[in-house]
């Protein structure tokens, strides 16, 4: 059911984006919700105050943990085992699926109730469960809707962001076998009733993991609906799929993550439920799973370890703030990215997890490098820089576009000498006579086709700045003012400070 890429069938990001942009509803729905989430985030972070200090703290905790991931992961595993958890390791998606299916078979499971987990999407686990006759039931409201539609989530936090209530009412009516009104309360009420029985019948509860606490072996889930609590309270067996980088050292560190994650994701002070699960039920407890498995998944994550340009990707806490901030995501929606993860984080993570250079280019190009993702990121991952690194690696490995490569070579030749640049401007001024009308260029051919489909191009003026410099210089030299002494002092002080190692910053440094 969740094997495909939703309903955007183009081969490239550009083709899928074009399809998405012709879908007026999708654009409006995604725009409406991302703007609302973005606004909520800004309000929540403003209200909380000192946001930059919190971001920096979050970043440092993540940097520290990843830099010592071997230590903390070992510690987590030892503690989880001491709590009675069966821990498994999976290098690949196939291995993680194999372990999950083995447990399901051992348990002779008929149904698995699932709470939202991006890792299981990454593994296409639902499809695998179905293949051995196990019915996987997504229980997050948005995920349930997407599963009925046979699609994949198009947003990390709001999986059904691309659907409206009428489409959802149709899907749920078919599921219910009766007409349901397109009213949010009615629709959610139906799903509540329907899933109640599913929770009580299910053999296995399956979850993802927001954070895993090394010092106590606890796993932490953030959610609003209560379905993750259901999944970890009611069924007899719990399976948790966890990316190997989900670790934080302590509960004290969880306070920082709990401060950053909900505010960045939905603008909430805290999600309605934050649950720390430390092992299966104790012998004397009357609820909670009898048996608990945690599968620690690599699936390409270790490719970023030790890579100075990409290691920070492992700091991601999957809040979705970069999607909500991204002007490109807003226009094309999640399915256009063609992977499990969409938006800016998906554009970097998808190729990074797959090591597939040839596929990198298209996704990495779907960004204007505006840096809104970096600004929104609660742990300050420089995604806009990473996109450039991806593009560079592709070029260096010889997978660049031939025409573009030739163009860039020409660009460098021209720009390596100002005299050549001057010559090219001269040729340009002659050439534009063919296409310019009243100081404007409007033709839609060649390289100007895409640009001029939305814009009018200005022509080159008679004189470039360098052409006019001689005259301008002579004019300003005449009657140049004496600089005010305090201004002169300021400038001298700045130069002095600079020598001491001062200077001024840029982005993340």
């Amino acid at each position, binding site marked *: 059911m969740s094997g495909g890429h939703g309903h955007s069938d183009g081969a490239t990001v550009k083709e899928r984006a074009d399809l998405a942009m012709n879908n007026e509803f999708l654009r409006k729905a995604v725009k409406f919700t991302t703007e609302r989430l973005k606004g909520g985030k800004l309000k929540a972070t403003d209200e909380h105050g000192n946001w930059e200090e919190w971001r920096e703290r979050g970043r440092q905790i993540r940097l520290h943990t990843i830099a010592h991931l071997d230590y903390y992961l070992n510690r987590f595993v030892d503690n989880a085992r001491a709590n009675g958890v069966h821990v498994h390791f999976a290098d690949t998606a196939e291995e993680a699926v194999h372990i999950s299916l083995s447990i399901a078979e051992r348990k002779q499971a008929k149904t698995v109730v699932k709470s939202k987990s991006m890792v299981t999407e990454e593994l296409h686990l639902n499809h695998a469960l179905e293949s051995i006759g196990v019915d996987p039931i997504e229980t997050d409201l948005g995920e349930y809707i997407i599963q009925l539609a046979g699609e994949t989530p198009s947003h990390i936090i709001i999986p*059904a962001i691309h659907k409206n209530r009428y489409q959802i009412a149709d899907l749920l009516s078919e599921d219910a076998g009766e007409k349901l009104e397109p009213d949010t309360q009615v629709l959610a009420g139906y799903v509540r009733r329907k899933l109640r029985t599913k929770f009580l019948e299910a053999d296995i509860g399956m979850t993802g993991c927001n954070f895993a606490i090394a010092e106590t072996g606890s796993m932490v889930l953030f959610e609003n*609906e209560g379905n993750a609590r259901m999944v970890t309270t009611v069924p007899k067996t719990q399976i948790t799929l966890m990316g190997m980088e989900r670790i934080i050292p302590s509960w004290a560190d969880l306070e920082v993550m709990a401060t950053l994650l909900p505010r960045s994701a939905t603008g909430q*002070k*805290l999600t309605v439920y934050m649950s*720390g699960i430390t092992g299966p039920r104790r012998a004397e407890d009357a*609820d909670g799973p009898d048996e608990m498995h945690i599968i620690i998944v690599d699936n390409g994550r270790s490719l970023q370890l030790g890579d100075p340009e990409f290691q920070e990707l492992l700091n991601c806490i999957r809040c979705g703030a970069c999607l909500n901030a991204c002007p490109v995501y807003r226009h094309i929606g999640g399915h256009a990215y063609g992977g499990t993860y969409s938006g800016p984080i998906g554009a970097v993570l998808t190729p990074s997890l797959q090591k597939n250079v040839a596929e990198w280019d298209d996704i990495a190009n779907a960004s204007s490098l505006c840096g809104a993702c970096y600004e929104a990121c609660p742990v300050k991952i420089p995604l806009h820089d990473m996109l450039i690194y991806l593009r560079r690696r592709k070029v260096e490995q010889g997978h660049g576009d031939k025409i573009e490569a030739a163009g860039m070579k020409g660009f460098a030749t021209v720009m390596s000498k100002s005299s050549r640049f001057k010559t090219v401007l001269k040729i340009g001024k002659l050439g534009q006579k063919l296409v310019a009308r009243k100081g404007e260029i409007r033709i839609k051919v060649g390289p100007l086709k895409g640009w001029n489909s939305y814009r009018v191009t200005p022509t080159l003026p008679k004189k470039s700045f360098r052409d006019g410099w001689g005259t301008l210089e002579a004019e300003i030299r005449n009657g140049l003012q004496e600089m005010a002494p305090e201004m002169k002092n300021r400038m001298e002080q700045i130069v002095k400070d600079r020598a001491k190692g001062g200077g001024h910053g840029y982005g993340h440094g």
Partner: protein
Amino acid sequence: MDTAKTHQQWLIEMEAESRSKQTRFINGISTKLRRPMVTEPPRHPYRGAPDFWNAYEWNEQERIERFTSNFRIVGGHVERFTTMDDVTRFIAEKAKELSVKYVIRQNQPELDALNLEGELPEAQVSVWNSDPGQYWKARSAEADFGVVMADYAAAYTGSITVLSSKDKGRSVSLLPTVLMAIIPVERLKTRLGEIMVHFDEGGRESLPAGIHFISGPSRSADIENDLTIGVHGPGVVYALIVG
């Protein structure tokens, strides 16, 4: 599947496999990080919240006010009482108002003292895990009211914290239609960190299987980002602050 193998045997085999895999898996990480495996606790200079935050504290009155406004803004209800007798009266009134038939409560002395069994003659009041023969999850699922004592609460986020045990079911705060959580005022802290510190200090062995922070009624914004209350968890939540 080898059905002859007992499940226990299978788990033991998986465990052995996992342990040998662990060495390779973690070694792989150390190799990628280009250094020998770290086995001693590394210095963690950025542990927990920034210092300015750890010094942040509200007085009791402010904690009550902030908790109340935070909890109400997300759709929860807050009532303020002087004594536990007031709590009993309130729950009894609400039960009558809503024609409550089933109540489930945690098995705690504070809740014994409420005497809900006597005060709610119309309802059947069950006490969590008081009879090992019962299917307690179903008793919770059918309940109109779930009544719990909060172990802690945090004013800054408007959160109630409940810890599981033999006598404190996770289901009681999750499956009933309405949740009534009683918060003795001295358990109401300013920050989440004041609660989490107990888990770090107590360490692994002190932790229950389930620690739940509850910050209002269950909700979802998955349909057109339109807020829906009561999706899977209780749609009505009362925080009853006492003392």
